[in-house]
């Protein structure tokens, strides 16, 4: 029972925050509401026996990614857009489509899935950070390396796309790149988007 209450509390917060993000006129509010959404999902992760993922959710998403969002919004001064409507039929069409998708999903979930299946309590020894770490560095070593490549792309890409014309920032750039190459530790990658904001 308490598990159900826990679930519904955070599920409602998550959905409410998402709806709020969708309709907020101010981009800053939207970003803050999204952080609320992420945080409540992180709580659900905790109840699903995924403490490591829950913490990563808070640090990477809520901590790093959303800070970067807020930073860019404030940097550009793009909290609000002047009202304009290029596609008058876009709004009703979009809503209809989203509902159709939802209906299809509900149809699948409610009528097709064995809905009686419930989740057992998390086993104590399941998905500890140690287990995840050993899996990451054994079975999943290869994709782990691929993520490092992906972060390399992201770091250099962000620098290339926002660099100032000319070679004024070249020295800073070189040092950033060498740092980025060294990026291997998972927690560290959360900070890389932050690093590049100095160049913006």
């Amino acid at each position, binding site marked *: 029972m308490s598990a159900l209450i826990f679930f519904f509390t955070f599920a409602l917060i998550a959905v409410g925050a998402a709806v709020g993000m969708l309709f907020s006129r101010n981009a800053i509010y939207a970003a803050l509401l999204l952080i609320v959404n992420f945080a409540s999902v992180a709580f659900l992760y905790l109840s699903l026996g995924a403490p490591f993922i829950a913490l990563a959710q808070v640090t990477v998403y809520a901590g790093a990614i959303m800070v970067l969002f807020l930073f860019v919004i404030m940097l550009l001064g793009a909290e609000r857009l002047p009202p304009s409507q290029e596609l008058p039929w876009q709004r009703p069409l979009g809503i209809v489509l989203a509902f159709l998708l939802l209906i299809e999903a509900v149809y699948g979930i409610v009528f097709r*899935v*064995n809905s009686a299946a419930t989740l057992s309590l998390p086993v104590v020894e399941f998905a500890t950070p140690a287990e995840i770490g050993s899996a990451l560095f054994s079975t999943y070593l290869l*994709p782990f*390396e691929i993520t490092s*490549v*992906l972060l390399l792309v992201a770091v250099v890409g962000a620098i290339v*796309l926002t660099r100032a*014309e000319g070679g004024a920032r070249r020295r800073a750039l070189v040092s950033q790149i060498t740092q980025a190459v060294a990026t291997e530790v998972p927690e560290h990658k959360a900070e890389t988007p932050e690093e590049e904001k100095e160049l913006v």
Partner: protein
Amino acid sequence: MTAADVYAILPLIVLGGASVVVLLGIAVHRSHSLTLILTLTGLVAAFLLLPLVSIEAPRQVTPLLVIDSYSIFFSGLIIAASFIITVLSYSYLSQQRGHREEFYLFLLLATLGSVVLVASTHFASFFLGLEVLSVSLYTLIAYSRKEYGIEAGVKYLILAGLSSAFLLFGMALVYSELGTMKLAQIPTSLSNPSSGVSQVFVLGGLALIVVGIGFKLALVPFHLWTPDVYQGAPAPVTAFVATISKGAMFALLLRYFTVVNIHNYPSLYLAFVVIAIASMFIGNLLGLLQTKLKRLLAYSSISHLGYLLVAFLASGPLAAVAVAFYLVTYFVTTLGAFGLITIMSNSDRDAEDPEDYRGLFWRKPWIAGSFTAMLLSLAGVPLTAGFVGKFYLVTAGIGSALWLLVIVLVVTSGIGLYYYLRVVVAMFASLPKGSTIAPAMRISPHFTGALAVTILVLLLFWLGIYPTPILRLIESMVTGFS
């Protein structure tokens, strides 16, 4: 991971290592030609490793990648195409201002992502390979940081992100029902009646995965981004999007849906039939009166991927051969077309307007002649590579009695012929009096670009006249897994 595993993925390691070397090279000494040489060396080394690696094939390296002759063949194709694109990029960038060297880094990494895709046997490697490719492409498309480039980059970013999200949700659905992300386990879990698996739910997940794949392949109805991105991106990057990105994705599609035998799932099969017919018709109709060359080639590529689906939907040993051979001809032809646009473009814009190619034959007979060859191959005229490729597609389709698809293929090829020939006619039309050279025309193409294009033209005719060696190679390498 054993030593043999590491040996099997050496080409991947070399590609990744080459990107690090390029990065350090830029840091030490920023030189355009040095970067080019490092990049080409990396690609050649990776390519030369493929035959050595194939001794160990087939080998499953962790659950994520499989190095078999199929993935080696497509890796070779991708790396070779990447080599050509790198050379074309040198020709293209040599007249651009600003930093040019990082471009090659992204080319290498996007190639790496594509190679991961063709060897993928697990959702994780699928998703990560796709993202390495996509994120590199965002940067490459917007690399020039001119207005069009950035606009194309943002469009590609948002839409690719959206399609990735669909893909991811599809993977989640499949995982939720089957409890596995390994490709090889999907069909066994699906067909096991005692497992209580809801087939429809899994098929819905597969359908969402098809959305993600269809976006990358620019199949109708996920095609809307194609012309804008083709037009906005620098010509060599457009070539990359049109060839390597699509080729890798198609190789993955063929592998995944051969393992998950689509012939067992009529509704999924039907979905592909609808996509194929829509792509052939809509791609060709959109191209009909288009005058901008890069947009025209975008529409053309939509229909070509539709043609490819015909062989994909056929069964039997010929289908995979037809797909692989058609991809080879499509690579050669598309690279050639974009290569020609590349060597004609100057630093202001890409040569794609009608005035750039009207009467081109009288100014640049060789470029116009090569372009004509490329367009005729795209149209599927005999003695060019495109004809043999299309012939195999049709044969594969007829072999599996896919009459509707084959008829649509033939009819829409007829529509397509119109716009290819329209460009050819424009190139041979006489110039209006007084006009000499269009402003975007480059005076003399860079020799590296000209060399690359010459090789492609020769390949085009070679494949059209003497396709046997390539076909033998494909037959021995591609049919293995299915």
